[in-house]
């Protein structure tokens, strides 16, 4: 298991039976591979599918069946198709239980930037704002730092914000944070990661949950 798979596997543990789940591009897509076998979730894709299945073998690719990342998929028994307006009505109306999204930055209040980069032409937003606004629960999965080693968890966003709505849970290769009214709460460290390392690599201030334990899942 590589580090991105580790993050995805950790995120998968958050899913409950019967959840309607939307997975973003990148690490979130990997989550599907780690859903426990006793948990049945239904994957929603904003281009108009409920009940997305695994990637098909090359000989079973249907060009009319792709996910929101435009990659070929299959559907499971019990799936349905709908138009884009209906799909986003589901999202915006609060009918998606959990969205798992990638990010560029997260601020100290748990708000994220994940759609645009300063100084570059902003020519794409897609469904990011809708998913963040409408999903009942939002989980962010991300590497803790950029390729250059800069913290992605920052005091204030320098990238354009995606929504005023804060996310609920942040899962990185180093740690897990919940988001509350008063900001970020560290609830978990990845195996082998020290509190000091997490603190050093996190620009934003955060609380440390009372029930926090190293390398173990804890309930905040």
């Amino acid at each position, binding site marked *: 298991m590589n580090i991105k798979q580790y993050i995805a596997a950790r995120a998968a543990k958050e899913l409950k039976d019967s959840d*309607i789940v939307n997975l973003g591009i990148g690490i979130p897509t990997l989550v599907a591979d780690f859903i426990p*076998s006793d948990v*049945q979730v*239904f994957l*929603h894709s904003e281009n108009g599918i*409920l*009940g997305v*299945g*695994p990637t*098909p073998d090359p000989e*079973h690719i*249907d060009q009319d*069946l792709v996910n929101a990342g435009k990659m070929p998929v*299959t*559907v*499971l*028994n*019990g*799936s*349905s*198709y*709908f138009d884009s307006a209906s799909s*986003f*009505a*589901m*999202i*915006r*109306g*609060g*009918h*998606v239980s959990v969205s798992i999204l990638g990010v560029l930055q997260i601020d100290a209040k748990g708000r994220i930037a994940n759609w645009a980069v300063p100084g570059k032409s902003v020519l794409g937003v897609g469904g990011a704002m809708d998913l963040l*606004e*409408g999903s009942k629960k939002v989980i962010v999965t991300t590497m803790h730092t950029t390729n250059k080693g800069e913290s992605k968890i920052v005091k204030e966003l320098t990238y354009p914000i995606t929504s005023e709505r804060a996310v609920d849970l942040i899962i990185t290769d180093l740690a897990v944070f919940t988001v509350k009214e008063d900001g970020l709460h560290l609830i978990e460290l990845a195996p082998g990661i020290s509190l000091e390392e997490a603190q050093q690599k996190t620009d934003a201030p955060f609380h440390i949950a009372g029930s926090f334990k190293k390398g173990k899942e804890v309930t905040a």
Partner: protein
Amino acid sequence: MLGFFISERLYPTKVYGEEGKRMSKLITCEEAVKMIKSGSRIMVGGFGLVGAPLSLIAALAQSEVKDLEIISNNLGEPGKGLGVLVRQKQVKKAIGSYFTSNPEVVQSYQNQEMEVELLPQGTMSEAIRAGGAGLGGFYTPVSVGTKIAENKEERTIAGKKYVFQEPLKANFALVKANKADQLGNLIYNKSARNFNPMMATAADVVIAEVDEVVEVGQISPEEIITPHLYIDFIVLKGGN
């Protein structure tokens, strides 16, 4: 009628293999109605009695709940469908488009036993859709300059007059479908579809009364009108 490719080879038995587990949405009318407290706001599908969840309504009529706020195009007929709730004075307020067809509604209203809020049928159906779709409201040109719009915000957009309509939501939606699969995917029969698909999106708890429950996979993904994520509970028509 449409062929569709289901990757059963890839997902063999895990998901739907456990018989019965996915039937957990199926409850009795009595169980359904027990969730409903006096004072609840309830959407009820149907155009007159067509597409109305008559078994759920009958169970509601058997119950003690009162002070209901009903969102429904009509209020049944005298002693039929929602008309029974009117006769039994269980309805505090009704929001809909056409109540004239039940003279007992007129009488209850005149006796001040019941409040009534009237919306043009298109405005009503759109407001329910907006409620389910997470919108804050919309502008419709319908009813501008009429009595219906008297207390509503009017706005001119691109030279045309519109009135603002807020979304409608409810605590419960009681809808009627033809078939449900065991997950709760729904299809409707002919003109019995009417308000049901929108109402299924716009309430905290959505209960579908159906003629028949079929196995998952018996309804093609292309045909499904209400995806199962909208449905919390299923009851069988006529049944316990």
